C-alpha cells in the first residue's frame, strides 16, 4: 500500500502547470468567451481563436499530454491514469478550454484498447489500420478528438444519439443527431456512441468533415458544445455488441474521472482567488478575510476539496489497474469533486461579493466551467445513486 504520487508524476504535473500558467490565462479564456448567444440564433461555429488554440495544444503535445495513455509504440508516453489525473487537475486549474480530458482520457484509451483486443475489432469489423492511424494522430497532438452520444444515468450509460427520423430503421445509413459534443468546432474526430440493432449500442469514429455541426448555446462558451449530425456506417463503426458495451462502460467511468480531476483544479483555483481577494479587500476598516464568517466559508470549501482529492486519485488507480470496484470508485470521485467544486464556486462568489458578479472579474471564467463539468458525466446526485446501488449490491452479495 503506497497511496502517493511518484517523483516523476509530480514533475510531469509541475511541468504542465508551469506551461499552462502562461499558455492559458484568464485573458485567453475571456477572448474565447462570448456574451451568451441568444438561443434562437446561435453563433456560427469557428468563433474559437484557432491560432491560440493550436499553439496551446502544440505545447501540451510537446509535453506528451494528449498521448499520455497511448502505448509508446503508438507515439504515446505509455503512462497511466494516475499520471493523467494530476495533469488534468492542472488543466482544471486554468479552465483549459481544449478537450484534453476527452482526447487523452477517453479517446486514446478507447482506441488503444481496441487495438489490444483483437476480439473487439473482429466483432465490429473496425479497420485496425485506421484505428492505429487515428490513435497516433491524437497521441501526437496532430488531431484533436472528442466524445459524444453517452451520458451517465443512475442505472448506467444513457444514450443520447438519436435518428433524425424517429421511425427510421437502425443502424446504418440513417442520419443521426448527437447533442452536446464538446470542442465541437475544434475536434478533428469524435468517438460517438449510437443505438445499434436490437436495442444494443455501437461506437463509431466520425471525422469532423463528415458531420454537420451546429453550436449549442452554453454558459461555458469556450467548451464549445455542439450538435453533430452524421450517418453511421460500416466505415465509421468501431465496435458493436458486447465489445461496444464494454467500451461504453469504460467511457462512463473514465468520463467521471476526467471531469472529477479537472473539478479539483477548478475548486483549488477558485478558493485561492477568493482567499487572495479576502486578504486584499477591506470593509469596516479591516481585511474581509479577518472576519470569521469569511474564514469559515472558505475553510469549509477547503475541507470538502481536501477530501475529494484522495478519492479521485483512488479512482484513477482503480481504473489503471482495472479493479472490479472502479465504477463505484469513479462515481464516488465525481460526486465528491462536483460537490467540492460547486461549493467552492458558491463560496468564492460570496466572498467576492458584487465584484464576482462582473465580467471583469476572472472568477466567472472558472465558475462557468465548474457548472458545466459538475453537471457532465453524472452530477453528484446521480453518481451517489450509482455508489449506493453498488454498495448495497456489495453488502448483500
Amino acid at each position, binding site marked *: 500500500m503506497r497511496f502517493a504520487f511518484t517523483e516523476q508524476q509530480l514533475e510531469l504535473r509541475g511541468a504542465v502547470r508551469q506551461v499552462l500558467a502562461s499558455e492559458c490565462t484568464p485573458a485567453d479564456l475571456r477572448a474565447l468567451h462570448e456574451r451568451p448567444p441568444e438561443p434562437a440564433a446561435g453563433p456560427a461555429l469557428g468563433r474559437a481563436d484557432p491560432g491560440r488554440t493550436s499553439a496551446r495544444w502544440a505545447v501540451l503535445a510537446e509535453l506528451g499530454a494528449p498521448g499520455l495513455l497511448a502505448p509508446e509504440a503508438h507515439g504515446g508516453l505509455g503512462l497511466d491514469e494516475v499520471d493523467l489525473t494530476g495533469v488534468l487537475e492542472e488543466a482544471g486549474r486554468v479552465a483549459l478550454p481544449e478537450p484534453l480530458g476527452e482526447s487523452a482520457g477517453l479517446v486514446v484509451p478507447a482506441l488503444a484498447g481496441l487495438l489490444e483486443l483483437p476480439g473487439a475489432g473482429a466483432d465490429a469489423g473496425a479497420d485496425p489500420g485506421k484505428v492505429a492511424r487515428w490513435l497516433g494522430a491524437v497521441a501526437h497532438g496532430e488531431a484533436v478528438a472528442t466524445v459524444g452520444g453517452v451520458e451517465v*444515468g443512475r442505472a448506467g450509460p444513457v444514450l443520447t444519439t438519436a435518428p433524425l427520423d424517429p421511425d427510421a430503421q437502425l443502424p446504418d445509413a440513417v442520419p443521426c443527431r448527437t447533442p452536446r459534443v464538446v470542442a465541437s468546432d475544434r475536434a478533428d474526430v469524435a468517438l460517438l456512441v449510437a443505438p445499434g440493432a436490437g436495442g444494443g449500442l455501437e461506437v463509431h469514429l466520425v471525422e469532423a468533415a463528415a458531420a454537420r455541426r451546429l453550436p449549442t448555446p452554453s*454558459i461555458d462558451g469556450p467548451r464549445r458544445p455542439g450538435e453533430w449530425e452524421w450517418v453511421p456506417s460500416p466505415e465509421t463503426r468501431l465496435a458493436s455488441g458486447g465489445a461496444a458495451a464494454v467500451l461504453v462502460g469504460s467511457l462512463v467511468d473514465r468520463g467521471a474521472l476526467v471531469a472529477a480531476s479537472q473539478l479539483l483544479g477548478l475548486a483549488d483555483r477558485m478558493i485561492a482567488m477568493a482567499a487572495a481577494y479576502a486578504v486584499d479587500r477591506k470593509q469596516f476598516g479591516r481585511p474581509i478575510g479577518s472576519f470569521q*464568517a469569511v474564514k469559515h466559508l472558505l475553510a469549509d470549501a477547503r475541507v470538502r476539496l481536501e477530501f475529494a482529492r484522495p478519492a479521485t486519485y483512488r479512482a484513477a488507480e482503480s481504473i489503471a489497474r482495472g479493479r472490479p470496484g472502479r465504477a463505484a470508485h469513479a462515481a464516488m470521485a465525481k460526486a465528491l469533486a462536483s460537490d467540492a467544486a460547486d461549493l467552492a464556486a458558491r463560496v468564492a462568489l460570496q466572498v467576492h461579493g458584487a465584484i464576482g458578479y462582473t465580467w471583469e472579474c476572472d472568477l466567472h471564467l472558472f465558475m462557468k466551467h465548474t457548472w458545466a463539468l459538475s453537471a457532465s458525466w453524472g452530477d453528484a446526485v446521480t453518481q451517489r445513486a450509482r455508489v449506493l446501488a453498488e454498495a448495497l449490491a456489495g453488502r448483500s452479495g
Partner: protein
Amino acid sequence: MDLDFTPEEQAFREEARRWLEAHVPAPGSLASLDTPEGFEEHRRWERTMYDDRWSVVNWPAALGGRDASIVEWLVFAEEYYRVQAPKRVSQNGIFLLAPTLFEHGTNEQKARYLPPMASADEIWCQGWSEPDAGSDLAGIRSRARRDAGGWVLDGQKTWCSRGAFAEWCFAIFRSDPEAERHRGLTYFLVPMDAPGVTVRPIPQLDGETGFAEVFFEGVRVPDDQVLGGVGEGWRVAMSTAGSERGLNLRSPARYTEAAGRLLDRYVGRLAEGGEAAEAATALADRVARAYVDAEAYRLHTYWTASAVAEGQAVGAEASCNKIFWSETDLAIHGLALALGGTGSELLEPGPDGGSRPGEWLDGYLFALAGPIYAGTNEIQRNVVAERLLGLPRG
C-alpha cells in the same frame, strides 16, 4: 385571525387579474431591460400600467395610485407574477426611493418627483455603494461641498442598477469630512444629465449590463435636491434600506411563482419516466423543502403585513427576511437546474420546452447575487444576532 380575503380584496384581485390578462406582454417578449431597446420597451409597459393606475397601486390616488392597502399590494404582486409580467424597470424608484420620499421629502419634492416616477418618465438608479464601501455605508468617501446656493458633488459610486440608462440617481455623499463614519452623510437627488456626471456600464458575468459605475466631478445640485436634511443621510438611507431588505421589494409572489414552476418541472421529469423520473425522485425532499420555504415566506409576509397594517414597525426582522428569501431563491433555482440533469449545458431549453431556454439559469445567476446585494447575508446575520438576540458587537 382570518385568512379569507375580504370582498374588497377579492374584487381588487379580480380587477387586477382582468386588466393584466388584457394588457400584459407575452412572457419573454420584451428585450432585456439591460439593453437600450429593452429599457425603453419596459418603460412603455410601465406607462401602460400607469395610464390605468396600476403602476403604483399603494400610492395615493392623487399621485396615480389606488390607495391600495398593504394586503392589496401583495395581492397585486401575486397577480403580476402569476402572468409572468415584465420586470419593473422603475423598481429602484418606486420601491426604494419612494418610501423615503413619502417619509422625508418636502411637499415640493413629493410633487416634483413622484408623478414622473409613477409614469416612468423619470427612472431612478441608486448611488450608495462605492468601490471601498460595499456593505459598509459608513465608509462612504464621495464628498459634497457647500457652495453658493447649493452643493458640489465629487466621487464615485458603483453597482448602480439601471445606472446605464436612468434619468436620476439617489445617492449618499459625505457632507462633513470631519464627522465620523455614520455621521456627516447627506442624501441627494441628482439628475444623471447634470454636467460632471459620467456613467460607465459594468458588464455582468452573463454579459448583460445590469449595473454601472457613476463618476461625479464637480456636479452642482441646489439645496432643494437634498432629501431629509443635511447630515441626516444615514438615518434617511436606513429607512430605504429597511424597504429594500424588508417587505416592499421582495414580494413573495416571485418565489411562490418560481416554486410553482419548479413543481411543474419536477412533475415533467416524473412523467418522462425511467432515468428522468428516478433522478427527480432523488430530489423530491429538496424540491418539497424549497416549495415549503416559498410558502413560509409568503405566510410570513402576510403576517408582517398584518402587523404593519395595525401600525407596528418592522425592525431587525427585515434582516431575517433578507436571509430567508435569498436562500429560498437559490434553492429553487439550483434545484431547477439540478432537475435538468446530467450533461446539461445549462442554456438549452429543457424537455419541458415551455419555459424559455436559459430562463432557469438567468434566475439562478440572479439568485446567486441575492446573498450579496442589499447588505450581504453575513451582515444581516450580525444584525439578527445583535438586535434580535442581544449578542455583543464584535
